[in-house]
């Protein structure tokens, strides 16, 4: 392990995130990290999902629809969606101070907005639908993992939705547009662009960009991310179907991909 870390650091030192057409973890440019999805992992929540994306470990829970508090924040025509993205203090190398910071406030906001187009909120006037995403272990791409988990958890909670939402990031490392940056790549990369999408309609419901891209790279990255969202959607759907296709409750869905350093 240590040896690998050292090698990795050395490569980073030399600004070599790509070698012989492969990335440090052995992936190709357009390859996702391994994904694992488990549905209905929490007993208390109305819906839940555990989601792994490479080294990211994320759990999402949905409560509601329930009575909205405070009352003045109720919407007489539709349910209010509350979304809380939170990183566990131990989810990162340097302990993160508990509680919401500005980053998590922003991530929560854009994640909530990524779901508003699909949740049929008009079914529950005045009520609240609460989505909680906890990042247990982080390795870049946590918001996308959180959205993927929340999507499955919302379905599991029986919330009426027009579609599932799938999410992934693209970025740029060593001048190359690549899919799904891991932590090292993100730290030393030139750009990071998370998107969320409704796979059926190709509708983008989250789009952020951080770093530096040319307009051409942006267009290419967007296409790449959209394609990957469709792959992730298939995995989300498979996990949900599988849950009730076997007689036992709880289901797992995994995608292979290259094993990296485990």
């Amino acid at each position, binding site marked *: 392990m240590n040896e690998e870390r050292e090698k990795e650091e050395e490569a980073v030192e030399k600004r070599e995130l790509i070698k012989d057409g492969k990335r440090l973890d052995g992936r190709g440019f357009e390859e996702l990290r391994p994904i694992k999805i488990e549905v209905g992992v929490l007993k208390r929540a109305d819906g839940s999902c555990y989601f792994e994306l490479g080294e990211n470990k994320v759990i999402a829970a949905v409560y509601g629809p329930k009575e909205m508090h405070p009352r003045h924040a109720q919407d007489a025509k539709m349910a209010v969606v509350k979304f809380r993205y939170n990183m566990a203090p131990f989810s990162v190398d340097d302990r993160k101070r508990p509680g919401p910071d500005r980053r998590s406030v922003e991530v929560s906001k*854009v994640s909530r907005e990524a779901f508003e187009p699909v949740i049929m909120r008009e079914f529950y006037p005045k009520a609240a639908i609460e989505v909680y995403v906890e990042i247990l272990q982080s390795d870049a791409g946590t918001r996308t993992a959180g959205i993927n988990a929340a999507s499955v958890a919302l379905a599991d909670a029986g919330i009426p939705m027009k579609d599932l939402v799938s999410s992934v990031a693209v970025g740029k490392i060593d001048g190359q547009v690549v899919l799904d940056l891991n932590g090292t790549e993100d730290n030393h990369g030139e750009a990071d662009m998370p998107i969320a999408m409704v796979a059926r309609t190709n509708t983008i419901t989250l789009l952020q960009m951080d770093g530096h891209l040319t307009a051409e790279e942006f267009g290419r990255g967007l296409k790449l991310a959209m394609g990957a969202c469709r792959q992730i959607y298939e995995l989300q759907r498979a996990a949900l179907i599988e849950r009730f296709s076997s007689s036992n409750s709880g289901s797992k869905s995994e995608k292979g991909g290259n094993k990296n350093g485990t």
Partner: protein
Amino acid sequence: MGLEIMDEIKQNYVANLVASGKREDGRGFREFREISVERGVAERAEGSARVKIGDSDVLVGVKLDVGAPFPDTPNKGVIITNAELVPLASPEFESGPPREDSVQLARVVDRGIRGSEAIDLERLCIEEGEKVWIVFIDIHILDNGGNLVDAAALGAISALLNARIPFEKWGLPAPAGEGEEEEGRESSRLPIRETPVAVTTAKIEGKILVDPNVNEENAATTKLTVISNADGSLSGMQKSGSGGLKEDEVLEMVELGIEKAGEIRENFL
């Protein structure tokens, strides 16, 4: 309740106008409101700018302080961006801890400055690992007429261009080869090497229009802010609102954003 119903009527009115190819204030879909930029308006600040876009009114102040660098970037200065939607600017703004709108506003502006590497942070290092300049960008919204992001981002880069490093105040020598000195001021300019400009487009009734005013913002399901640089490259992006966008819409918004940013840069920076 009365207010809510009013809002809804207005939303429908604005949306219907847009659907028929018109805007409330008679602008074209690719047309900004009138912009004004006034620099150096806050005397106590190291740099400042007041930007008006239509009746949106934003004041940005830049203050510099000496402090410790982040451990992972010991030879770089620090940027801290903050936005306050003070209650005087809108009946919808409340006092209290920052709400997600103001957090998002600050972070998007910050993203543009950072992503474009507008400030040469290495030149803000005083003593590696010990002392660096900390650049505080404080965004103060005075009147919310819509599209605060573009006004704040333009205010931020304008204020940075206006800012001087207060070497004298801290008893520090001005580093050799720094930006030109100006008469009566011992400090030199901040090392600014890029001028990121944010342009927000909104989608209403399936139509894309630039620089939404406050009523258009309320009627819009989705907005996209695109921050671009002098060479047409991108250094930040943020979708907001509860709607979705198609790929061709995104590309149209990006193209429009880059084009408008060029015009703004030419006229105001």
